[in-house]
């Protein structure tokens, strides 16, 4: 039986926020417009509060010495504290301290904001959705009429292809790589972009953590990344090296 496209109970919306295309795809059989409005309002607030490009954001004010960390918004304090913990957990490979001496927590902010965005949809009683910010996403429930969400992991050498397919009804998926924006991840210990590694994909319960782990593992480079990811509790990984070797942790849920 074929279902006509216009009968599918879904909402797909794309907006450019935090310098990234944010895609929201809701497949519940009920009104989702107001929840999706709330979701985009939330992300705009996050952008206004955390952006290092906006002069009046709290992060910019902290960096100019006009606002003390302890006086910042509770969400800002929460994110900065998590960045500190992640730096320890990743042996310094995830580091929000920018080369100019300021802080730039955007490596965590995006994933953390999408986790909260997913909670907004949960609270509105929606159970079938995907929220993606620049290719890092949370999926939940079904991609109606299908029984789950099927997420392709981009092939790092061929943008038209995927290197793996992950199917899930509840998962966060983050991929860090050098192939799209040029070398935007660098090793904080050497100050250089890692070589010999094409991408790291991390999947698990939370996108903030998955994204930070992916960034850190990518910065570690080809020798350390696969082994480091194999020891993460609750998160699974796929690392693609420049010699086209793929390392997957034992529970990586691809087909």
């Amino acid at each position, binding site marked *: 039986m074929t279902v006509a496209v216009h009968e599918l109970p879904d909402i797909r919306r794309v907006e450019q926020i935090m310098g990234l295309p944010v895609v929201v795809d809701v497949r519940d059989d009920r009104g989702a417009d107001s929840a999706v409005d709330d979701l985009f309002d939330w992300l705009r607030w996050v952008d206004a509060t955390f952006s290092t490009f906006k002069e009046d954001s709290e992060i910019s004010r902290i960096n100019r010495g006009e606002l003390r960390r302890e006086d910042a918004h509770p969400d800002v304090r929460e994110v900065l504290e998590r960045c500190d913990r992640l730096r320890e957990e990743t*042996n310094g490979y995830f580091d929000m301290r920018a080369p100019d001496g300021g802080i730039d927590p955007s490596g965590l902010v995006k994933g953390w904001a999408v986790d909260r965005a997913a909670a907004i949809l949960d609270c509105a009683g929606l159970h079938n959705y995907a929220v993606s910010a620049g*290719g890092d996403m949370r999926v939940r429930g079904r991609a109606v009429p299908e029984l789950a969400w099927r*997420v392709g992991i981009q092939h790092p050498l061929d943008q038209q292809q995927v290197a793996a397919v992950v199917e899930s009804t509840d998962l966060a998926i983050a991929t860090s*790589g050098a192939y*799209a924006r040029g070398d935007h991840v660098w090793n904080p210990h050497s100050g250089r972009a890692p070589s010999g590694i094409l991408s790291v994909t991390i999947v698990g319960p939370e996108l903030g953590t998955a994204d930070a782990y992916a960034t850190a593992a990518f910065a570690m480079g080809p020798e350390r990344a696969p082994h480091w990811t194999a020891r993460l509790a609750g998160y699974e990984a796929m690392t693609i090296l420049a010699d086209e070797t793929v390392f997957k942790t034992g529970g990586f849920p691809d087909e």
Partner: protein
Amino acid sequence: MRKSITVLLSVAALSLPIVDATAATRATTKKIVVSKRFTGSVTSVDRWGNLQVTIVVRKTTTTTGTKKKVTRKITAVSVPTYPNHTDRSIYINQTALPILKSEALRVQSASINMVSGATDTSDAFAQSLQAAILKAKKS
């Protein structure tokens, strides 16, 4: 009595060279297979403790006439020593440490709903998204 015959037979079998059918007319091929265990050095894993890996390597020496070819293959990998000095790393070891699968990069062609990847320029992303949406609608 029976036992000694068995032994004699197996010794005879071992001493017979394995003959490669294609080369049989010109030279005999002798194959020697040896499996050996190798233990790596103890290495420090970040701050979680030490790790040591043992591998079993199967070495095959094939001699055809005067030509000798040696191939080595790893047949087993194990981790006899691994970090366990904190609660967290004990937990991690129990869940994940020994399992890391390696394979070649491939292309998957299955139908998908979303794509995870490092961010492209937003225009290209939007185009590819549109294409994906169109495909999803057709499927």
